[in-house]
């Protein structure tokens, strides 16, 4: 199944109904690429921008913040550059990220 997803991505042949799934993957990977770890709040904001779902979970977010489940700032690992080089030599080399 992963092989088919990867081929679909590489060939740019994506079903219109999967548009938001692709938006999610892009936001997720973009977050890891920047700091080495996934920054949930940043990833969600980026996903909203890509999917235009600006009001999704708008009532849930304050509850999560109150419970200390979302951080306002990302954690950048010391090896962030090493992680960026991994991205540069894999998906970015193939020119499939946006």
């Amino acid at each position: 199944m992963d092989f088919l997803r990867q081929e679909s991505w590489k060939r740019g042949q994506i079903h219109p109904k999967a548009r938001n799934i692709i938006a999610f993957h892009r936001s997720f990977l973009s977050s890891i690429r920047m700091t080495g770890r996934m920054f949930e709040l940043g990833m969600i904001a980026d996903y909203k921008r890509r999917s235009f779902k600006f009001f999704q979970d708008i009532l849930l977010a304050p509850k999560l913040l109150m419970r200390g489940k979302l951080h306002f700032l990302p954690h950048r690992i010391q090896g962030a550059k090493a992680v960026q080089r991994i991205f540069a030599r894999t998906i970015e080399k193939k020119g499939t990220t946006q």
Partner: protein
Amino acid sequence: MRVAYFPGCSLKGSAREFDESLRAVAERVGLELVEIPDWNCCGASSGHAIDHLLSLALPGRILALAEKTGLEDLLVPCSACYNRLITARQDLLEDRKLKAEVCELIEMDLQLSVRVRNVIEVLKEAMESGNFALEAPFVHRVACYYGCLLVRPHKVVRFDRPEEPRTMDEMMHAIGADPVDWAFKVECCGAGMTLARTELVAKLCARILDDAEGRDAEAVITACPMCHANLDMRRGDIEKAAGRKFHIPIMYITQAIGLALGIDRGRLGLDRHIVPVLLKTIEQQPNTSPAGA
């Protein structure tokens, strides 16, 4: 017992109570967690859907860092991270050329000497060998929910049975709980599709909660932060999809064990959940014998 520890991104954020409760329980049962320095995200749930080499290199860097601790076992509590790390390790063990390629990508050597282990198997082992007391047996009827990533694919994870796993049920029984026999133990909750396919996740979760409540379970016990997030944080969407209310709380296995060990609910992060964890108080007989005995 001393193990390398990879918490993963969720346990530092939306699933922080899993990390908090695991650390509290580990301390009590004599399990020392050595967090891998400078770990990165393993790429779950997106890396493997987009690029095969990326999906091996991100876990590869984690495995290489874990090897530097000199420890034999790597504890990975998040089921999605566990699945990615154990799968990547298996793929690299089977293909030398691929392993060399990944070593070049991560700029580190990789022996693949560290065993990737999930939270259930490590805790079970620690509890069997530890010397501690059950201060408040967890006398509750529970539905043990394994999800799909903890026990599958069986030929890779080689943990428990893929269709009818028992380990978590046995552990719950050992702390005084009554695990119910139910049909959704290993069904998928929708996992990482929670943002992109919320309606689908809500439908899948409604079926899981409906069966658990139908069997009179007082709580669903899980070991996966994504299953927890979908069943707990998505409760509003689930109720909308089902057209009815659900009251059953979702607890991490470490929280249930922590309560049985008499650990304060604040230390276990029980108040961080969206669905309040309010279990019926049952008259208990103090049990001071070691749980592992």
